[in-house]
């Protein structure tokens, strides 16, 4: 995708998003039923209660925030039962949970797939059962109702650019990485490496080590990396926890301000650290909002008033993201911090 396409997609996404929200609002009032003359008063019987569920990757801040956003919208609808299910970081568990939800006749399934291909057969199954699936952040190869994402690949490219700019276009960087096995990791790593190639070919990745998404491991690994690479000018943590681990090390070694550190996700601790001038930056998305959008689309779909086909082949909502740095972090309102 070119930059232009990227932007076009983004605009399309936002439009679709607002349409979805509007439709959701409409949907709340369109729940008419010939047998019940009054709106919203009729206690919902067991039969017409709708079930929606979100299958997450594993307990983590990002899906938790999505879930909050989703719930915020759904709880305004008294006929919807919502629950959060745990994929236990295993594709096969996610598949089993998908099948359980299909069996239960859920109205909409939110899904944060661990893998694009692995969940595709289950999504196809859901489609056959007329259950719309809305994916979050990781798309599936099987076309489905809607996909709401913060683009990891382009985000990481932008991070590479921002990081390189601050390093003056030269020097050595290290990546604090996650072990392979989930596509986000690959997208972010590839985006970052490609971004450096494109924008700052003189910057060299001197170390790419696994720190298991974990702040403590990141501390240990970066400490070790610094022994071999005392001139390290930048660090990219594939998630914020690892970036904050790098900040811990930089603080201890008096490298704050000298070493450029970027994270990814944009959770509130990271934003706070940016404000304090410790973490250089991160890719931020309003994850609550992302959840709300997903939920809005879901309510529309669940009414049946707007069929999934109205979203075209597959609804696609690209969340706007921000490379949050000391200069821009102030734009993020407290209510948008998760």
């Amino acid at each position, binding site marked *: 995708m070119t930059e232009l396409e990227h932007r076009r997609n983004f605009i399309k996404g936002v439009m679709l998003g607002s349409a979805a929200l509007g439709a959701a609002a409409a949907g709340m009032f369109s729940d008419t039923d010939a047998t019940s003359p009054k709106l919203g008063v009729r206690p919902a019987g067991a039969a017409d209660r709708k079930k929606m569920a979100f299958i997450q990757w594993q*307990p983590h801040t990002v899906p938790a925030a999505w879930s909050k956003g989703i719930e915020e919208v759904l709880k305004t609808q008294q006929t919807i*039962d919502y*629950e*959060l*299910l*745990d994929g236990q*970081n*295993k*594709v*096969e*568990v996610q*598949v*089993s*949970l998908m*099948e*359980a939800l*299909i*069996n*239960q*006749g859920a109205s909409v399934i939110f899904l944060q797939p*661990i*893998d*694009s*291909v*692995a*969940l*595709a*057969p289950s999504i196809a199954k859901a489609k056959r059962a007329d259950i719309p699936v809305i994916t979050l952040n990781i798309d599936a*190869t099987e076309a489905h109702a809607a996909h709401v994402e913060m683009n990891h690949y382009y985000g990481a490219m932008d991070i590479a650019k921002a990081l390189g700019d601050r390093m003056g276009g030269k020097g050595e960087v290290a990546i604090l990485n996650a*072990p*392979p*096995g*989930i*596509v986000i990791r*690959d997208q972010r790593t*590839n985006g970052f490496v490609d971004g450096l190639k494109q924008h700052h070919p003189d910057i060299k990745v001197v170390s790419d080590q696994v720190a298991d998404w974990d702040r403590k491991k990141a501390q240990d690994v970066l400490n070790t990396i610094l022994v071999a690479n005392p001139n390290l000018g930048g660090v990219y943590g594939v998630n914020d926890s690892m970036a904050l681990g790098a900040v811990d090390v930089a603080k201890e070694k008096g490298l704050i301000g000298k070493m450029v550190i970027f994270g990814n996700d944009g959770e509130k601790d990271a934003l706070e650290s940016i404000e304090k001038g410790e973490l250089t930056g991160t890719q931020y998305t309003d994850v609550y909002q992302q959840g709300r959008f997903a939920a809005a689309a879901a309510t529309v779909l669940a009414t049946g008033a707007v069929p999934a086909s109205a979203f075209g082949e597959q609804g696609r909502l690209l969340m706007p993201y921000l490379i949050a740095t000391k200069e821009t972090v102030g734009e993020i309102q407290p209510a948008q911090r998760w």
Partner: protein
Amino acid sequence: MAGRYSILPLVGFFILVFAFFSFTATRFASATNIENLLSGFSFVAMLAVGQAFPILLRGIDLSVGAIVAVVGMIVFDLSLIFGVPGWLILPVALLAGAAAGALNGVLVVYVRLQPFIATLATLAAYRGLVYSISGRQLVPELSTTPLRDPWIIGLETYFDVGRFLGISSIVKLPWIPLSFVALLALVAVLQLVLSATRFGRDLFAVGGNLEGARLAGINVARVTVAAYAISGACAALAALFLVARLTTATEALGIGAELTAIAAAVVGGVSLQGGVGTVVGPAIGAFLLGVILLGLTLLGVSQFVQQIMTGVILLAAISYDRLLALRVRRAGPSL
């Protein structure tokens, strides 16, 4: 009959839990849900069945999850990168799993490592190997390319038993996945191996009394290597069905599967002290774990409470078994 292990208490407990969810969770006792149970947990059962063999020898195989990933990745690479036809991939995959398992056995026998350490080392090494050979890293586009080879994808097939029997209009029977049929065949073959072949007798002898087996002229090395190879081959079989179900393989496939398999085997009555156990038990143990996951999900128990309940039911399963055993043993010597 003291001393001979019976799987009846486990079957009883399984039925108890199954009945509980049938009454409390909507659509738990439905044909679709049973289909989900069979297709979602047959591969776990295969791992548990394989795990029984090292445990029967007083050993353990921690590397099964990593073997699943290695075999999965081999299938992925051969099919998507090298375009090898599926009918050739299937035997290669099984052989690769058996070889990976046999290497564990070799480390235990010839390098004389404790099984725990040997398979812990290969757990790391095999996972590293997966990362090395990952087609997803070598050719990034492939991470969004599903496997299409009919021989592999064809493993995810369901049989409409109801229609076959001509009773689909009267009662809705679950469709039976091929993986479950394969599991039944595997259990039947391995149970026969255990109870009716020379190798099976030798295996119980080595697990029950190593020195005695050696003095009886049993080739302990061969039995041990074979047991670990069986565990590896079962992991490979599980990997094939898993890959067929997912239409892809990931590097993280099978992480943590070793503990699940061991838990299923132990709940299934295979003694960690060696020399006592069946292969039917571990398979039932694995499906018990499936019943718990699906049951609690359909019951709408929150994910956190689910974890607690899973632990509690696991404890209950093993205590129940122990309680019955105690009652039977009451007359015998205790200490």
